[in-house]
């Protein structure tokens, strides 16, 4: 058993992958609590796909891929806000239009790059085993910064999510607080790009928080439990990926899904099996 655990750790790339997975798992799961509670799952997925043209342009210009991704995510997030603000087009339609356009533009740009088949699949599904020490440091820094903001702005985020009218009566800048939250989401998505890929970031944003939601009744507990599920999914997923020879991003996501299904069936308060047995 110990061998089973230690064996993968003899490889430096597995060590880096485990740390990266842990960081991204925790980061996505904590920010994801707001994604789930504010019904922003579609927006999170859209942001993830929207970073593609940014990455492609950065690649073509020989710039920093993560910076390109971040700029694209922020532009699309604010664009969605602008289009839906006027009220003529619903927000989900605005998201649908912009994110597919960004995705198409990204694929079009990447297809002009000769080696695009390899690069595209890395962006879409992640390449956690190829993460460099520099990337790892950047991921760690971003994770710490985002989590710090989540802790410091706990009250404003709670109020704008639960009761925007209270934010208005307190004269808090609701719009600004929502945009800060959106920016944190964009940062999270960008950092996760290399770990699980843009195609599967949404799963890490939604599945662990939804699992935690089934088991808790308070937001701080939901965040802590969600972080735990995110971290466990990343580690367990990586081990499964190592031994079963599966791509690591999907292995992590499927592990998270497994936790969700267990909670969905057996949660003491909201699980369908136990609830039924109570009635019967």
């Amino acid at each position, binding site marked *: 058993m110990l061998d089973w655990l230690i064996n993968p750790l003899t490889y430096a790339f597995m060590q880096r992958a485990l740390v990266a997975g842990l960081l991204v798992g925790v980061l996505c799961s904590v920010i994801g609590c707001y994604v789930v509670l504010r019904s922003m799952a579609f927006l999170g997925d859209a942001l993830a796909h929207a970073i593609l043209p940014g990455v492609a342009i950065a690649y073509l210009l020989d710039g920093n891929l993560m910076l390109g991704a971040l700029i694209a995510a922020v532009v699309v997030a604010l664009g969605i806000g602008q289009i839906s603000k006027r009220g003529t087009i619903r927000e989900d339609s605005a998201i649908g239009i912009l994110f597919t356009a960004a995705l198409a533009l990204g694929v079009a740009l990447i297809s002009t790059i000769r080696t695009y088949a390899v690069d595209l699949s890395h962006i879409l599904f992640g390449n956690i085993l190829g993460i460099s020490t520099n990337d790892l440091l950047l991921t760690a820094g971003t994770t710490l910064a985002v989590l710090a903001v989540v802790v*410091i*702005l706990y009250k404003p985020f709670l109020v704008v999510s*639960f009761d925007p009218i209270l934010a208005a009566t307190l*004269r808090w800048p609701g719009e600004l607080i929502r945009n800060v939250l959106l920016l944190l989401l964009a940062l999270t998505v960008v950092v996760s790009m290399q770990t699980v890929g843009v195609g599967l970031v949404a799963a890490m944003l939604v599945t662990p928080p939804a699992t935690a939601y089934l088991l*808790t009744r308070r937001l701080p507990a939901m965040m802590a439990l969600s972080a735990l599920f995110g971290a466990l999914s990343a580690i367990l997923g990586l081990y499964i990926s190592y031994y079963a020879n599966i791509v690591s991003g999907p292995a992590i996501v499927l592990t998270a899904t497994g936790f969700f299904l267990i909670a969905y069936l057996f949660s003491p308060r909201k699980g369908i099996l136990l609830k039924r047995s109570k009635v019967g």
Partner: protein
Amino acid sequence: MSKPSEQELRDPARLDLNHVSAGYNGKDAISNLSLQIPHGSQAAIVGPNGAGKSTLFKVLVGLLPVSKGTIQIHCKPIGQHRDCVAYVPQREEVDWKFPVTVRDVIAMGRFAHTGFLKRSTLQDRLVVDDCLKKMNLIELAETPVGDLSGGQQQRVFLARALAQEPHILLMDEPFTAVDASTTDATLALLNDLRKDKVTVLVSTHDLNLAAEHFDLVVLLNKKLIAFGPAKQALTPKTLKAAFGQRLVSMKGAFLVDDCCPPDEEHHHQEVPHA
């Protein structure tokens, strides 16, 4: 249109509306509204669906800008007061699936005093405990708000409003779709607030309740129809002007055939003229 007494006009008004218009997409839902609610008085806002009651509240809490006119609280423009206005929302306005307990929600009432970033103080926790007691919620303190009954949920938000220690309390339809004990608890709270000189504005469909329990009645139908003590503000003439055909008079009591929340399209049978 009747006016408040001279004594009341001499006091600085807590809430001053001067020719206020506001609405959505350039269309005014309330227009040219002028009234003064004196220090510590309790006013009921009545009017048919779509009269602009909710719009008025949205303007007062700062969710909607005025398109014309000014609003002043304590003779200062609205927006300069952070701890001044408390709002008790309608039940449909709250996300009951959010993972917060009764105590969490009431503690939010203290955010006005502790501010954006600071942790809550011992004083805050004492006030929250006190409000839990006052609204009879001690045993439910650690219960998620989604698990409560409708009446209990309303008591939670009343307790939160108390915790805000507001100067002006706004309640949107607190007597609609609640049981008798919740109505009683709400009225008892309003009575308590008189001692603290809290100015109260409540919107309601219930004309008799408005007449019985409130110092002042604001009769609204996009414009101000009447304003003053119930006896002067609610006359057959003003009521007809506000409600039109929907008003039914029975044995001296007025009934309004207008029971539904504003967004629902229900069709009532026309009441034939007696």
